[in-house]
């Protein structure tokens, strides 16, 4: 009954308005923040954002099997406009029911 209002994918994003969301971006970046607005291009306006940037360093001339070192850089922003063309996914960061922080996103493994 409650789901009758969901007719298109954007309705799901609408549910997340003014909620904390997890946004995956191109270029190995991830955001968590409170979603305030979005549009059809997936442009987002977020506040209280923490950005996580994965920096994958592959050593020069290293053998193929050697795992690359992954450095994580983080920064915080009070208010952020995200251009929609970089957005890969938007989801709630953790489920309310179990109160667990299901925020374990496996970092992109590039070997």
């Amino acid at each position, binding site marked *: 009954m409650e*789901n009758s209002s969901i007719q298109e994918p954007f309705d799901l994003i609408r*549910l997340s308005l003014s909620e904390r969301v997890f946004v995956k971006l191109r270029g190995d970046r991830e955001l968590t923040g409170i979603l305030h607005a979005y549009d059809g291009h997936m442009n987002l306006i977020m506040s209280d954002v923490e950005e996580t940037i994965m920096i994958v360093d592959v050593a020069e001339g290293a053998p193929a099997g050697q795992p690359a070192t992954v450095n994580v850089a983080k920064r915080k922003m009070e208010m952020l406009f995200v251009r929609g063309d970089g957005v890969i996914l938007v989801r709630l960061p953790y489920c309310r*029911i179990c109160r667990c922080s299901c925020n374990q996103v496996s970092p992109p493994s590039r070997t």
Partner: protein
Amino acid sequence: MSFFDFQGENLEDERERIRNGGLHENEDVAVYTWGEDSYDGLGDALQEGDDDFNDETFGGPGVVGKDFDFAGQTSLLEPEISQHKTANRAVASPQDLAPVRQAEQHPPVERRAPQSLESIWDDKSPFSVLPRENGGSRFAERERGQPSISQFSPYPESPMLHQAHASQGGARTLQEIEAEMRTAAIQSRNTLQRQQSALRLQQEEEQFLQEQAFQRRRLAAQQQREREREEREMQLQALQRLQQQQVMQMREHTQHQRTPPPRMLPVSQSPRFLDQRQMLLLQQEDQLRLQQELQEQLRMEDLERQLRAQQISQLNQGPIHFNHRRQPSGPTIAELQALQQQQQQQNRRHRSQSPAYQEFNVAQQNIQMQQRLLAELAQAEYLREFQGATQAEQEALRAEAMRKIVEAEKMEDKRRNKAAKIAHMSRYNDLMTQSDKDFITRIQVSQLVTPDPYADDFYAQVYSAIVRSRMGLQMQDERVLKFGSSGGISLGAPQKGPTRRPNAMQRMEQQVERIVSNARRREEEKGLHSLHSLQGALGKTSGRSYKAAPRQLLQVDENPATSPSHAHAHAHISKEDAKEGAATEAAKFSRETLGNGGNVVRKDPLTHRQVLAILEALYDLVLKVEQLRRDRPPQEDEQAGQQWERECNEIVEQLWEGLKVMVPLETSNPHPFVSLLFPSKGKKLLPRLTRHIDQPRMLTLMTLLVACFTQLDVVKQAPLLDSLDDTPEQAEAERQTQAFLTSVLQSILPVVTKLELHYVTALLGLLIERSQDIGALAQTKPGLALLTLFLSRVEVIKQAWGTGADPIDRVSASASLEQWQAVFDQFFALLTPHFLRLFPSSRITLQAHHPASAALAIDIIDQPVWQFLAALALLAVPEQHQVLVTSLRDKVLENVLSANKGWVADEDERRTKLANVNLFLHALGLDSSQITL
């Protein structure tokens, strides 16, 4: 002139040789002797036949047209040649001066027209029909009327004419053509010579003519001078007569008598000129009145003489004056007076003239003004002399004059700048027609029209409403243009102060209305005709195509009900479904009844997504009802008012349903309503929503909230706040708590402030009963805030009763007071072991890594606790006071001590500590200053 650099002599020689048959001997060329005796007859061997369609293929042997005569066309564009030709014509008849002058006065454009048309008129090519620029066709008609003019052509026959004649006369031999070319070459040579001599002649002639004209003009000028002198004398006499009369009469009379000469007009528009004149005139008048007539006569004659001398000298200065055709003579007295009278009027006219118009005169005026100024200065000098003014007066006059001149120049500059600006701006005037502008406006406006102008421009509208209320203006509520029910345009924020805009706005409104009505009409028409007009617009399918479509092999009945097998399958599935559903339902039901002993259907708590979906739906409803409240119909329209009322109530009903307040308490844990308050937007929604809910329902809502208070996320997560570690969870809890305090408690505040005492008693009892551990609840911010709210409400009621402000029934009042005291005693007893734990500062342990500012923050978060304790102390009986003081003694002493001994970071912290303590002590009738350490 020769073609392709062929020398005329060579052509001549060539021709000679050809004529003499030299070709046969000298040329090493195969010679074809077709038709002669020596003809070898090879031509007869040619295969003849199948030539039937030759004409059709290569064109018939018809008359060759002249359309290819492009040389004739291009020669039209050689004005130089034709000019010389006309000059030659003048040479041919030097005695007759008239035609020459006429020719000279024609612009060259016209002059080249005749000979070109000569060749064009008699052909039928399309070129001759086409109108040409420079008014050639107009001229051509005149030429047709007088064909004899062509006789004036310097060429007896122009080369072009040759070609024209030749083409009419059929095919020509090569010899003929060559002959023509030769003659043309010779003629062109001759022409060159003739042109040179003609040029010489022309120059001489022009000189002669100029001289003649000069002399004639001089004669005329002399005559004119004579006339003017006479006129002036007459005027002088008239003036002398008139001076005996009154001034006013005289002025009228002179104005009547003669209008100023035309040359005065443009100059007299200059304010500089007028000012100076006026000044001089005033002096003159005074003096003239004083002097005797004889003297006057003498001086006038003297003036006259000098003026004449001046004129003559100016005349002799050179021919420049002739160009101007004006004789800059000094003004006579009469002229001056007439001028003075006209001054006012002309000044007015001068100002009323549009700057654009003045711009046209500026250049001309400048030249004139300069000349005039020079003359004026000379005259002023002279006039001063003869007036016999004193030296001081003269100086003053001069200074004044200079000042006026500078002023006038400034004015002039300003005016010129303005005119230039206007001219600059008006460069693009009339580039677009009105329909162009309308078209563009239509496009722009069509982008602005929306079905719901208020909602589409919501933020601007709300902002402008706020701005307006701040300015204290009471304008119409919405700045939108509405067109019936179909749409409108938002006008955005209001303008500040009167501008040109309102006018433009009105115009836009009108235009928009027109456009919208037009569009609507078009829409209707389209609706009527759309089916017919679009049928077959993409072409019709040919009859064959449907035959090519595959034949239908399966005949499936459209109505499945008639298919027995299908219906059976469907029924089977649905039956099984129902059975299964019923089984689970039954199991569930039994579980519920066993678990709770009530007949409440237990359900799973709402999932997070369900909550969010419900909240979105609620937000939609809230927005709808808010919009509806804004669109309240006017009072007089009762039917619309009722309709509006119904709609509002319906939406409010939906809101109430959506809030799920009426769902039985035991349905789920957390209760659906509490689930809705989990997300911060749910908390924020409540105050917007409760505005539309009436008092009894709000009471129900609050009761539910109190009953389910421990289920609230903010209460559950409160321990998280007792940490100074900055974790995301803690930040989230902080955010939620803030939202709860500012939104949810704010929305129930108006209900609490109207609560009766027995209601408060019941609510407090309910809270104690439902929360199991009231001490723990009081340790949470929301719980503490709610308890403070209740206690302060009771205190207010008690005060109202005490002062008699609230007339009450004593019996019921004492009964409810008794009830309250019982509940309060229970509450106090339950709370007593927790008094110290109420303080966040007692729960929080400062760790080394925490910032120094955290200490002050602790005091600040203690503040609500002190407030609560103060409220508690106010309601407590003396024994309870005792308990309070003994429990909190350490805390109070610690605060006072640290404040007095300076164990604080700064003055702020000290003051906060003392204020906190005093808040509580004042409620007990004490003060921190009474405490001695």
